[in-house]
């Protein structure tokens, strides 16, 4: 009813959690890693925190000859092994009452008719009220057939006081053209406001903290521009290889897998202007503006780098090179390291390069945004006194060891005046919580509440591809990516790339 206000809710009543209204989640691809390690534990954790509605339903769909009990067992084990909060029998008992399983394959009409019947049944028995989220934890190639089935069986249709939402995971296409195609297919069945694209980075507390750091403080905003910032480095390094994901990764590569979504989202949050408010609309508006201003630095030969890891020693273990990994074409030219240079063509960022890099089998697992400041314009010291002074830096550590580091010069104790870099550290773990919610918990709850702030929209996805496409095309015309030994920080061309701009990579 329009204009009706729940008399029990009050914005001043901050301890009252928002519980999602009656609803259910249907997961496609329940046997996959994502479902078992992230989704199901997140659903349990939400239930344990009392944030799921009474009568919540969870439906699994997969090609298995299972009954509801078998699926409940899979969920139980996934929860036991991976949930963040302690296992409580009474919570599990209530949750498992709403667990259903539908066996079948995506091209089988009959099994989707079964699914529709199960969903209708849940509305009846559990009171899910016709509100359902469809989580596609499946390869994108299977999206069209599943979406078509959802449309055919009327599962995607809703009447006025119900909602149906679809949740999709990256990759959102493999270039601009395919992304537009995918968006069209999805939007054919679900309107854009019902589409929730998961970029799990955006569910991380530290990423949301970029906004708090920038816009809640007086300290940083005045220097957050080209007057003071020299350049920005955004790094996402993994120490693992392709283990198990080779089939997915071959032909995709580091740039499509990570830069297109995570790193460009981090760039948008770092570079955007202050939003008018934190409403989803203004936040997206600013991110889209920032992404629209992003231009590739040219020539691409000198401003980009890519590589493939070769066999080597990493952290005390002997590991094979990418071309020897199981499931990879030994002739593959898929890059496992990618670095690009971007400019943000706005008054705020004129002349400040943004260096983005990502890779597998790098030195250690780390994701961070490093804002490197210019040197002080004048140093009233003798040069010998400041030989060890580097550039000031503000580093937002996204994972692991979430927090913020500031690097600045400090006097070395002693009779001589000598200045050296020191670090000041803020750790989330010590200031707040060890038990902060997992990204998927936050994102799933937002899906159920219909709160779209943390999900990239069509326009953001398409803009990101528009930025990256020329690089991908350029690379496609080159030979093999440059090799780099596993356990190092990438190929020499990455160092040459940043050296050409007169900077060096920081060691994260």
């Amino acid at each position, binding site marked *: 009813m329009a204009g009706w206000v729940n*008399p029990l809710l009050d914005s001043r009543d901050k*301890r009252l*959690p928002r*519980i999602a209204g*009656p609803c259910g989640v249907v997961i496609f691809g329940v046997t996959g890693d994502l479902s078992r390690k992230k989704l199901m534990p997140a659903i349990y954790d939400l*239930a344990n925190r009392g944030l799921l509605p*009474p009568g919540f339903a969870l439906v699994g769909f997969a090609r298995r000859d299972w009954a509801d009990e078998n699926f409940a067992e899979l969920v139980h084990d996934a929860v036991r092994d991976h949930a963040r909060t302690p296992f409580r029998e009474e919570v599990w008992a209530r949750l498992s*009452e709403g667990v259903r399983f539908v066996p079948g394959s995506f091209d089988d009409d009959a099994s989707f008719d079964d699914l529709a019947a199960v969903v209708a049944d849940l509305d009846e028995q559990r009171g899910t009220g016709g509100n359902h989220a469809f989580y596609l934890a499946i390869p994108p190639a299977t999206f069209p057939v599943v979406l078509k089935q959802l449309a055919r069986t009327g599962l995607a249709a809703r009447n006025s006081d119900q909602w149906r939402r679809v949740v999709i995971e990256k990759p959102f296409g493999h270039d601009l053209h395919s992304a537009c195609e995918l968006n069209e297919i999805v939007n054919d069945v679900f309107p854009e406001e019902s589409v929730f694209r998961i970029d799990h980075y955006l569910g991380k507390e530290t990423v949301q903290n970029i906004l708090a750091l920038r816009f809640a403080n007086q300290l940083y905003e005045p220097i957050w521009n080209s007057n003071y910032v020299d350049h920005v480095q955004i790094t996402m390094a993994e120490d693992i290889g392709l283990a198990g994901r080779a089939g997915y990764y071959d032909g995709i590569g580091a740039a499509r897998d990570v830069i297109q979504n995570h790193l460009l989202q981090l760039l948008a949050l770092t570079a955007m202007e202050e939003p008018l408010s934190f409403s989803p609309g203004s936040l997206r508006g600013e991110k889209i503006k920032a992404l629209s201003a992003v231009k590739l630095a040219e020539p691409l030969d000198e401003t980009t780098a890519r590589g493939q890891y070769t066999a080597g020693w990493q952290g005390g273990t002997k590991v094979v090179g990418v071309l020897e990994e199981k499931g990879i074409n030994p002739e593959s030219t898929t890059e496992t390291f990618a670095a690009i240079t971007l400019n943000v063509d706005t008054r705020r960022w004129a002349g400040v390069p943004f260096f983005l890099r990502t890779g597998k089998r790098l030195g250690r697992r780390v994701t961070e945004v490093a804002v490197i400041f210019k040197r002080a314009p004048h140093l009233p010291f003798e040069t010998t006194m400041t030989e060890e002074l580097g550039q000031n830096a503000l580093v937002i550590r996204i994972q692991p060891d979430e927090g913020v580091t500031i690097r600045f010069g400090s006097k070395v104790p002693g009779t001589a005046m000598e200045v050296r870099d020191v670090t000041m550290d803020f750790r989330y773990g010590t200031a707040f919580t060890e038990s902060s919610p997992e990204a998927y918990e936050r994102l799933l709850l937002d899906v159920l509440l219909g709160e779209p702030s943390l999900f990239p929209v069509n326009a953001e996805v398409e803009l990101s591809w528009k930025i990256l496409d020329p690089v991908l095309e350029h690379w496609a015309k080159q030979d093999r990516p440059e090799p780099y030994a596993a356990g190092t920080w990438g190929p020499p061309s990455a160092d040459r790339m940043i050296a050409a701009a007169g900077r060096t990579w920081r060691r994260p």
Partner: protein
Amino acid sequence: MIVDLPSTTTSAVNHALIDIRERGGAVALGRVLTLVIVTDDSAQVEQSIDAANEASKEHPCRVVVLARGLKRAGTRLDAQIRVGGDAGASEVLVLRLYGPLADHGDSVLVPLLLPDCPVVAWWPGAAPAVPAEDPIGRLAQRRITDTAAASQPIKALESRRTSYTAGDTDLAWTRITPWRALLAAALDLPPHEDVETVTVTGAADNPSADLLAGWLRSRLHVPVRRRTSPPGGGISAAVLERRSGKVELVRPDGKVGTLRQPGQPERRVPLRRRPVRDCLAEELRRLDPDETYQAALQALTEVDGRRASPTKSPLTAQTRDVETRTDQ
């Protein structure tokens, strides 16, 4: 690591803290608040520290326990510092105050507060009549009491009501957050009709049931009736009457709630009594005045059928230990 400092002074304690930081790197600088636990020197000390350590995983803090020992003894301060594995994500200072010093806990506390950070005072057992005017309460931005742990809960609730000051809060209020959230979510569903009357059923001496009734009264402005159920059971039901029928949340066994409302199937929901550590973690999540609690307190006088100040059977007072005391 546990360091004992018998018969000591606060400057020696501060000194020892810096020492420990230099040697072990146990950092106090990232702490977000100082939690002061005021209690008698009894079994309650360890129970409260356990709860605080659990809560500190969400809110790393310095915990200062002021344990009042024998007043007839000579003046003495015994201190114990716990860091690392013995203190969760916090550092714990247990200060035992003997003799005349027992009445001057605030003088011991001042040098041990973290710079700038908010101070939260918590009385797990008996609380001062007016927490905001207590010497330790005055140092704190937020004062947590637990009327359910008082020897006369309803009388304690009355005194909280008449002396409410911004920053006061009550674990009896914290315990009903899940009830409140479920009732609010239930009203979100159609039909969006006005609530006409409300009944809250719970043990006569249960302050949480009173606060739930008070909250509903303050939000809905309709007649709210309080009914009594057998002692020890906490809240057993909340019923909101609307034209189309009742919205009913009942919890007969203290574990699982059942939600009934017209046009919807019956739903069951886990609704166990919350342990103290959960309540404490929730309390520490916000440090500004809780206006909703204030409104609920003040609406208590408008609730029908509430026992103003019942006499409490001494038997229940003795047999209830900390866990079962968490009646909601």
